[in-house]
């Protein structure tokens, strides 16, 4: 029995691999040089629950894309698929022309180019702020201790925490922790930053500091995909707003278009509730 099921697994794995191969040969040429992340027909299910049905998004270099949507619309899952924290069950995601769903892709190498900031910060509690920022630089990018430390201090200074380098995460406020987390991601010199409800766990007065850092980042030209509930931020900073619901992109456009003249009923309904 076991052998049979193993065989079946093997065959299906082979089929999956070949299907990826066939399709991955196809789309590379059609990609625009300026498209840094291309999500094509992305599907994701958790067991029987279909979270993402058919998501298609292209993100251009330097663009700030804000993804809005009600809870359960799949926006966080979509974001987590981009660096393969969730493995898509269908479709493709290209990062700088490479298919991240291809098993041959070195995902660890690819991830260094994609920074991610989490809702729950996820700082390493046993390391100081500086050590948090240094760890991956040393272990993944193999930077020297001196170089990693210099970059860490620089990044911490940029997020306004130059004087907190030796603090433990437990000694920092939520807002400060989140800014350390941003510095940690930036130290890897990513080409795109993913923000997964980065301010949702923060008190209003702490949100401002984090949003400030994110705005600075956008001004510097960083490509950002931001899942958030901060409408003000979306309006001020976003180049494009994407509204998701039920596992699909319902509406997208400039902030003005989406906020002031929403076309879709669900978007109208959602924005109506927020306002």
């Amino acid at each position, binding site marked *: 029995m076991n052998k049979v099921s193993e065989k079946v697994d093997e065959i299906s794995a082979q089929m999956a691999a070949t299907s990826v191969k066939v399709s991955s040969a196809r789309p590379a040429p059609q990609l625009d040089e300026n498209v840094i992340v291309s999500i094509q027909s992305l599907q994701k299910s958790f067991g029987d629950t279909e979270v993402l049905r058919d998501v298609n998004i292209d993100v251009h270099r330097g663009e700030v894309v804000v993804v809005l949507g009600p809870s359960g619309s799949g926006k966080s899952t979509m974001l987590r698929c981009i660096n393969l924290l969730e493995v898509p069950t269908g479709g493709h995601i290209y990062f700088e022309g490479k298919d991240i769903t291809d098993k041959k892709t070195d995902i660890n190498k690819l991830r260094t180019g994609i920074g991610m900031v989490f809702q729950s910060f996820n700082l*390493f509690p046993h390391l100081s702020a500086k050590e948090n920022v240094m760890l991956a630089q040393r272990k*993944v990018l193999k930077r020297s201790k001196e170089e990693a430390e210099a970059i860490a201090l620089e990044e911490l200074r940029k997020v306004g925490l130059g004087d907190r380098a030796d603090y433990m995460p437990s000694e920092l*406020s939520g807002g400060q922790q989140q800014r350390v987390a941003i510095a940690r991601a930036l130290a890897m010199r990513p080409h795109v930053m993913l923000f997964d409800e980065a301010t949702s766990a923060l008190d209003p007065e702490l949100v401002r500091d984090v949003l400030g850092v994110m705005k600075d980042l956008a001004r510097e030209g960083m490509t950002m995909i931001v899942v958030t509930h901060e409408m003000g931020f979306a309006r001020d900073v976003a180049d494009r707003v994407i509204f998701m619901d039920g596992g699909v992109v319902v509406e997208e456009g400039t902030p003005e278009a989406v906020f002031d003249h929403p076309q879709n009923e669900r978007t109208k309904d959602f924005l109506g509730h927020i306002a």
Partner: protein
Amino acid sequence: MESRSTAFGFLAVLTALACALVLAAVAASPAFAMETERWTAKSNQDSGNQIMGGTPTRVTWQGQSAEDESVATVSLALPEGTVVDAANVAVTVLDGLERLDFASAVTTDGAQVNVAFDEAAPAGAMIMIECNECVLPPSGGQFPVAGTYTVEGGAAQDIPDGGKTIDVVGTSAAEQMSKWLAAQPAVQAWNSVKFLHLFLDPTIAITSVPAVFQGWILAILMVIISFPLAIPLGLMWSFMRMAKNRVLCAIASCYINIIRGTPLFLQIYIAYFGLPQMGVNISGFWMGIIVLFLNSSAYLAEIFRAGIQSIPKGQFEASRSLGMSGAQTMIHVIIPQTVRRVIPTMTSEFILMYKDTSLLAAVGVYEIISNAKIITAATGNMTPYIVGALFYLVVTIPATRAINHMEKKLADGGRKRKKARAQAEAAGVIESAPVAMRAVAADGDADMTLSMRLSESFAVSPEGAAYGAEKKALRHKARRDSKDGKGDPRE
């Protein structure tokens, strides 16, 4: 040259022969002199028939004087270090079966007993010297007869030993101490209470300590050797258990479930009675170490697994999102956090393992309980077990306290930033630091953490309302913590 050396050799042989003849004559001569008939001491052991050193006993010497010798004095050299009082020495002279009334003067000189008859004993008489309340050397040993006698008007002659010896069993300082205690009225009063005598007899407690201590050393050694070995094995099992590979996982699960699902006692029996029949012959000590090592590794495996799985999923995700591999994530992010979490549990496992060495008593390993049992079997007293209990507690109570201390420290938030504090103190005052921070730098360690939080609220709320912000920050932290506890909320 050659002939001269031959002559010399011949001479040497002759000389040797002559010497041998003289010696033989000397050796043969005592056949006509005094003979030692008896050289004994009375057993003074509580149970058994041995002669204990350092304890009063009666030493008896009996000599048969020769038919032609009328003995005037006898001088007995008792073993070196023996304590004897002349008043306790009884001298008897027998002629055949008849007891003769002979006056004598007894003196002692150290361990030497001198008997001088007022008038010489008749030739062929039997002389008996009994030294009562005589304390033989505590160190023990085998003592032959030694001494001299004089015939009236003659020179001193050695008493032949006749091959007889007194075998004295050594007694330790503890046993002597125990004897001394037993003689104290306070101790006797204490022991008159049945409960105190049965469970807390000081005289038995004192004699138990050395034996139980030996068992304690053995138990400690076993744990100290096997526990550190069990840690890497346990870690290996836990990784196998969490492995995606089904075969590895199944092997580890089987091992862990079997070891944890059966009593250690059974495992000990199987090892001690099974392995020798398989031709594996290891000493009880090392067998014990192997069994404890294998047993503990299964428990540690589950401790490590629980520790690793208690780390929030977000830690893996954050680490992986930075491009670190699974192994790097384990080594640099997960394991360091796990270690802090599992140390208290590991210490309780250590305590359990230490207590479990007692089970090895059943297979003849002389650990604490075995040693206590020997004394209890001889005395019928429970005190040795109480002494054994104390030897367990000497280790377990400090270890438990250490766990409590560690848990408290963990609850307080673990490592603090020593470097920053040192720098702040060295620099005196950090220029950019808010007011509260300066106060801390001046005050030293006191209320460091709270002040840090205050300083932070100054920083984030320039409008003031420092205390309100502080309260909010704390409330928020509590909320976040509870959220973290529920795991990563996926939208």
